[in-house]
């Protein structure tokens, strides 16, 4: 039988071997990651080449959707809760090339999360923020990350959380540009609400119902729009019999679809807000049972329970009184040339009648929906049409193809 001394020696040997193995593995991983990772990109380029990760985003400028897409790199966004909605939100922002992400969550990845997007089975047991940072850094090394693995609702963590919202911006010391609430419980939402009311921080709230078939997003501007404590939590009516809902023994259901949809509309609103395009929604609900998307805006409640909300409302009133809103009237200038001695005018090449004949009937459609193109009645008959006629009409390429095949 081995003596204690012998066993101790054996333990030391094995320990050394383990250290060697670990070192070898680390070296291999480093080498691999150097191969896999692209280098950081200093300046976003609009060049259309396969190797440019930003070409499709920068194309938004050419399409006239966004004025200055590069500006996205100057923003810092805090994502609180890196679960079904938060992780997908963080991934979307990472792929869009956001400047900085601050991730907050105290949970670990579990196999029970695998019905949702983003996390993978081999990450089970890791903290969500750590696993997320690793994946996201791989996707886009240009984004800077800051992760915090704690519960924001307890006293000391809350103080630290507030401090990071106030000072964790793109430039250390400046506040973040936006806080996104992707948490799954009332307590954490109220904590974010409290922090943002105290700091006057603009934030967006998101949520998916416990039965997984409805969700919402909401923009909260302290003092201006209703805060989370101004009214009881809003729910999107699911229009299902409540009694059939309360299944014994289950606390919450979840679907990757609903969570993906909510993350999508959340990040869409974030992009519109940060890059100033389209209309930013104050509240957008999603009812998956009926495919219904209610929207609305809600003013802050003067009797709100949160003292800081009431103070922010006073501040807002003062600001409003100081600078009354100027009605922006956009006037289109008529082009008048100084002299036009020959009386030249621009005339359309086709007459209204020709245009009408060439476009055909528009089907009756609800507001907001239109057809990409119409098919003129005579073309639809298409027996006598010549190729040259088809080519001169301003139709969509697909339609032309269609006509060729018909012949």
């Amino acid at each position: 039988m081995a003596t204690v001394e012998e066993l101790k020696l054996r333990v030391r040997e094995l320990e050394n071997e383990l250290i060697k193995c670990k070192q070898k593995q680390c070296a291999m991983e480093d080498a691999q990651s150097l191969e896999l990772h692209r280098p950081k990109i200093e300046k976003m380029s609009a060049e259309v080449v396969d190797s440019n990760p930003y070409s499709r985003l920068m194309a938004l400028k050419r399409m006239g959707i966004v004025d200055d897409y590069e500006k996205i790199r100057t923003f810092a966004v805090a994502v609180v809760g890196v679960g079904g909605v938060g992780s997908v939100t963080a991934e979307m922002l990472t792929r869009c090339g956001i400047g900085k992400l601050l991730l907050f969550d105290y949970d670990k990845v579990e196999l029970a999360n695998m019905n949702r997007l983003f996390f993978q089975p081999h990450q089970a047991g890791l903290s969500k923020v750590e696993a997320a940072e690793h994946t996201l850094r791989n996707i886009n090394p240009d984004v800077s990350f800051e992760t915090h693995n704690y519960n924001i609702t307890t006293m000391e963590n809350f103080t630290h959380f507030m401090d990071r919202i106030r000072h964790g911006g793109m430039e250390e010391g400046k506040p973040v540009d936006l806080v996104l609430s992707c948490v799954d419980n009332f307590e954490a939402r109220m904590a974010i609400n409290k922090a943002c009311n105290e700091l006057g921080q603009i934030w967006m709230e998101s949520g998916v119902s416990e039965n997984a078939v409805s969700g919402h997003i909401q923009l909260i501007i302290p003092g201006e729009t209703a805060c989370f404590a101004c009214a009881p939590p809003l729910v999107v009516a699911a229009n299902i019999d409540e009694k059939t809902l309360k299944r014994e023994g289950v606390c919450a259901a979840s679907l990757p679809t609903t969570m993906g949809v909510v993350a999508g509309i959340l990040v869409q609103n974030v992009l519109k807000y940060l890059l100033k395009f389209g209309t930013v929604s104050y509240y957008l609900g999603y009812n998956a049972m009926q495919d219904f998307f209610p929207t609305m805006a809600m003013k802050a409640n003067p009797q709100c329970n949160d003292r800081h909300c009431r103070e922010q409302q006073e501040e807002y009133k003062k600001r409003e009184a100081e600078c009354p809103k100027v009605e922006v009237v956009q006037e289109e200038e008529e082009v008048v040339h100084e002299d036009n001695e020959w009386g030249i005018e621009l005339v359309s090449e086709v007459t209204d009648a020709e245009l009408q004949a060439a476009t055909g009937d528009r089907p009756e459609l609800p507001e907001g929906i239109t057809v990409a193109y119409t098919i003129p009645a005579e073309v639809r008959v298409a027996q006598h049409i010549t190729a040259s006629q088809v080519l001169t009409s301003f139709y969509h390429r697909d339609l032309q193809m269609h006509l060729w095949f018909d012949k």
Partner: protein
Amino acid sequence: MADEATRKAVSQIPLLKTNAGPRDRTLWPQRLKEEYQALIHFVEQNKAADNDWFRLESNPDGTRWTGTCWFIHELLRYEFQIEFDIPVTYPDTAPEVAVPELDGKTAKMYRGGKICLTDHFAPLWARNVPRFGLAHLMALGLGPWLAVEIPDLISKGIVQREKRGNTYL
């Protein structure tokens, strides 16, 4: 929803007056005093009714609470450790009571053994801010949860009485 006996017990718990959370340095000690008064009153009342079922104590600043609760089922006593933090949003939101040793044993629980109070308790609490306190949390939150869950867990054999030394607890 709470049963008739619980309702009666609650009607005898003093309501709290001070609307202050742990971040409110000046008013929190007053709120804490009211919490303790209500808790003591509730425990005394339970004892008098021969229905003593929990103990709680806090750290000096009253932000972290620990204790035990016990449940009698078919004349046998089952005991559990309980714990919770006072959230920064207290009393607007109720603390999340955890029974860590039951974590993973029932679906009506969130991670870390926090009991699921959303349906039966959260709306009730919200309607009674700031009058409800920790004694109400015990009577209307933890109490009904134990009454539903523990017999079920026992019948499934998931909860068993622990033998300590030569005696059962």
